[in-house]
């Protein structure tokens, strides 16, 4: 599978939050999107997912241009996002949240049983009402809910926010299990070191534009791109 994002621009009303961003992701790869607050990371994910309409540019999945498709149509084609803030359905149980995740209608390795194996945290809480769980439990459930949809590419928006480091380590350890089956991952992360430890590719955003992109980058270069110091 290949996801190609080409000269993508998007924003909110008059505000252009994202400008001419381009990259591509292959099957089984992990792409880390890093940048300061307000750099446009979440905007990028929402535009790829279809929640935001792109001003210019395109999103192409396996050769098919999905830029004009709705979010639900993209989800059915395998572009799944775990949104910022988890966004579980609070009055539904964990199991019901997961069951809704199968609405993509996609077949694959992931189902209720296999995600429960991957996340024992979720398995133990199937009948718990989603709104009454801790941050870590909710995050695991949100990721599991996207996984049962059998994504081609799963996009994780700041999964470490507000969570204890030990739990975050556990999530990152599991990323390997996800990519092993050919699923790609786009990771939006504030914690740059954490993101770099797993990423094949890094894309740094600064004020809505690409400031650095590549593989095996020098940390000093990344820091400069993140903060906007150094050469532009």
């Amino acid at each position, binding site marked *: 599978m290949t996801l190609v994002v080409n000269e993508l621009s998007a924003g909110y009303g008059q505000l252009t939050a994202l400008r001419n961003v381009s990259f591509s992701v292959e099957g089984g790869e992990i792409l880390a999107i890093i940048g300061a607050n307000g750099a446009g990371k979440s905007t990028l994910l929402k535009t790829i997912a279809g929640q935001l309409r792109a001003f210019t540019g395109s999103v192409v999945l396996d050769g098919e241009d999905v830029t004009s498709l709705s979010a639900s149509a993209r989800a059915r084609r395998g572009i799944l996002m775990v949104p910022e803030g988890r966004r579980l359905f609070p*009055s539904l149980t964990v199991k019901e949240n997961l069951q809704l995740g199968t609405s993509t209608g996609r077949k694959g390795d992931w189902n209720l049983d296999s995600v429960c194996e991957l996340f024992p945290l979720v398995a133990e809480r199937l009948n718990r009402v989603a709104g009454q769980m801790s941050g870590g439990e909710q995050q695991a459930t949100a990721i599991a809910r996207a996984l049962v949809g059998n994504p081609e590419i799963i996009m994780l928006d700041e999964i470490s926010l507000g969570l204890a480091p030990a739990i975050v380590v556990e999530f990152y350890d599991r990323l390997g299990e996800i990519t092993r089956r050919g699923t790609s991952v786009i990771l939006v992360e504030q914690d740059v070191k954490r993101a770099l430890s797993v990423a094949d590719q890094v894309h740094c955003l600064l004020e809505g534009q690409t400031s650095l992109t590549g593989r095996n980058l020098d940390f000093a270069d990344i820091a400069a791109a993140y903060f906007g110091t150094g050469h532009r």
Partner: protein
Amino acid sequence: MLGGLYAIFAAGLSLIFGVMKIVSLSYGAFAVLAAFLALHFTQATGWPPVLALLVVVPVMAAFGWALQRFVLQRTLGTSALPSILVTFGIAIIIENVLLITESADQKRMSLGWIDTAALDLGLIRLGVYPLGLFVLSLVLLGILAWVMAKTQFGRAVRAISEDAPTVELLGIRPKMIYAWAGAIALALAAIGGVASGIQTSFSPTSGGMLLIFAFEAVIIGGIGSLWGTFLGALVLGVAQTVGANYFPSQGILIGHIVFLIFLAFMPQGLSGKVKRS
């Protein structure tokens, strides 16, 4: 036993208002429309009104689907005002079309002997028809509750009422879900309308009263809870009946007073589920 009839009405409204957050002022008019459709159907074919339901319900359900999908869907947004205006307009249109095509007379459908049949249980006499309606309302609400709790569609409806954008991220098309919910709601309105048309007389303008009763039942019972709505309908029915016993011809007023008391002191309703507005 009046509660059974109200429960059927109110269930549909509970779905539209409580879940989809649409203020459907045309709900009562649809019920009356269904009653007139059934009336003409029985007059044309000579079939009993119950069989007319077999035709009227699917027709109304299909109409509800289309109305939601193509008209009401566009009124959804942050403000409740568009849906209020549109559905109010629809109600007026339906009422006036009916007034023109039918007369303003009271009409009534009959089930024959069942109309006045009653069970004598010593202390009280239970009308067979109201009893049957009560049982029917239990069955219908039970089915609806099961659908909401156990089916993927029901889960989707509950999820949409909490977070529609995230539902889209999972591959579900909210418009379809809303459309089918609209169909179910109007099917319930149709059943309620025909049932009411058998029990009491109706005319093109009866829709307003039915609408009020349905809203009262939903609010007494608590917005967002199906069984709450059922209880609310029962409370309303009992209030009206008991009230009529003590103050003949003021039964409906007593019902309104009870509703106002609930609104003042227990606005979250019997089920206590408070939803964000």
